[in-house]
C-alpha cells in the first residue's frame, strides 16, 4: 500500500481538487485508489458525485466496522470515504489512518489522504514510505510559510518523503514566475513542475466531475498526469 498525504500549506490552496483529480488519473492508469477525506469541511465527495444531501462520513461512525459502511465508489471505480459532520480528535484521526492499512485487500492500492491545512503534518503517525505533498501557491505568504516549514522539518526527525507542489500557477504573473524560479533553484523539496491555474478544474467540479472526464485534453489534465507519473517515480526510488 502506498500512502500519499496531500495538504495545503495554508487554507484555499486547492488541495481537495488535486486529490480528486489525481485519484481519477491514477485510477485510469490502472492503480487501485482509495481517497480519504480527513478535512472537516468534508467536500471531497462532491468531486466524486456524492449527493450534496449526504453529509455523513467516518467521523460520525462509532468504530471502524461502522466506518467500513461509509465508503462509496464513484463511476470511475474510485473508492472514497467522506469525512462527515463531527470534528474528530487527533487520536481518532490517527486511528483512522492506521485502520486504513487494513483496507489493502487489493494489492498495491494507493490511499490518498485529503488533509486539512490547519493540522500540522507532524500530528499524524507517518511511516518512512509515506509521501507528504504540501500544496503551495506562488505568493509571498506561501514563501514565508515554506521557509518556516523547512526550519521545522530540519528540527524534527521526519522519516517520510516531504515535497512542496505549486498549485494554480499563473504563467502571466511576474511575481509567480520570480517566486517559482527562486524556489526551483533554492528549495530541494520543491516538485520540479507546477499545476497550472485552469478554469477546467473549477468547471469540472461544477459539473460534478474531474478534469480527466470533462476535458481530457486540457492543460489541467496534462498537469495531473505529470503529477501522477512523478509520484509513481518517487515510489520506485
Amino acid at each position, binding site marked *: 500500500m502506498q500512502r500519499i498525504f496531500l495538504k495545503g500549506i495554508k487554507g484555499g490552496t486547492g488541495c481537495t481538487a488535486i486529490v480528486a483529480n489525481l485519484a481519477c488519473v491514477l485510477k485510469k492508469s490502472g492503480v487501485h485508489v482509495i481517497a480519504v477525506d480527513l478535512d472537516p469541511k468534508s467536500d471531497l465527495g462532491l468531486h466524486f458525485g456524492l449527493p450534496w444531501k449526504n453529509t455523513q462520513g467516518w467521523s460520525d461512525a462509532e468504530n471502524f466496522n461502522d466506518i467500513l459502511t461509509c465508503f462509496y465508489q464513484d463511476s470511475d471505480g474510485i473508492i472514497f470515504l467522506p469525512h462527515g459532520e463531527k470534528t474528530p480528535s487527533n487520536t481518532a484521526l490517527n486511528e483512522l489512518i492506521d485502520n486504513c492499512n487494513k483496507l489493502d485487500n487489493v494489492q498495491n492500492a494507493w490511499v490518498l489522504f485529503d488533509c486539512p491545512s490547519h493540522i500540522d503534518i507532524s500530528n499524524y503517525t507517518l511511516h518512512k514510505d509515506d509521501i507528504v505533498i504540501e500544496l503551495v501557491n506562488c505568493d509571498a505568504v506561501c514563501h514565508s510559510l515554506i521557509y518556516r516549514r523547512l526550519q521545522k522539518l530540519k528540527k524534527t526527525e521526519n522519516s517520510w518523503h516531504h515535497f512542496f507542489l505549486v498549485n494554480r500557477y499563473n504563467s502571466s504573473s511576474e511575481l509567480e514566475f520570480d517566486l517559482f524560479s527562486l524556489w526551483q533553484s533554492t528549495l*530541494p523539496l520543491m516538485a520540479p513542475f507546477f499545476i497550472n491555474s485552469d478554469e477546467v478544474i473549477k468547471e469540472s467540479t461544477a459539473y460534478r466531475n474531474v478534469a480527466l472526464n470533462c476535458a481530457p485534453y486540457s492543460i489541467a489534465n496534462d498537469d495531473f498526469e505529470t503529477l501522477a507519473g512523478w509520484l509513481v517515480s518517487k515510489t520506485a526510488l
Partner: protein
Amino acid sequence: MQNLISKNPQTLTSNDIANLAHRFGGKSEDYIEIVNTQKNMQTINKYALLKEIDNELASITSR
C-alpha cells in the same frame, strides 16, 4: 542533417537531490543548488518580504 545538442538542465530536480542524499547521507533538505545565485539575489532584493526573510535566515545560520 543538423547535430542535436543535448544540454544538461541547469536546475536540479528533486530526484537529483534525493540521489545526493541517498549517496552522501543526511536529509535531502540539506542539499541546495548553488547555481543562479546572482539571479536569486536579484529576485530576493526585488521584494521586501523576501529580503526580510532572507536576512532573518542568514542571521539564524550565522549564529
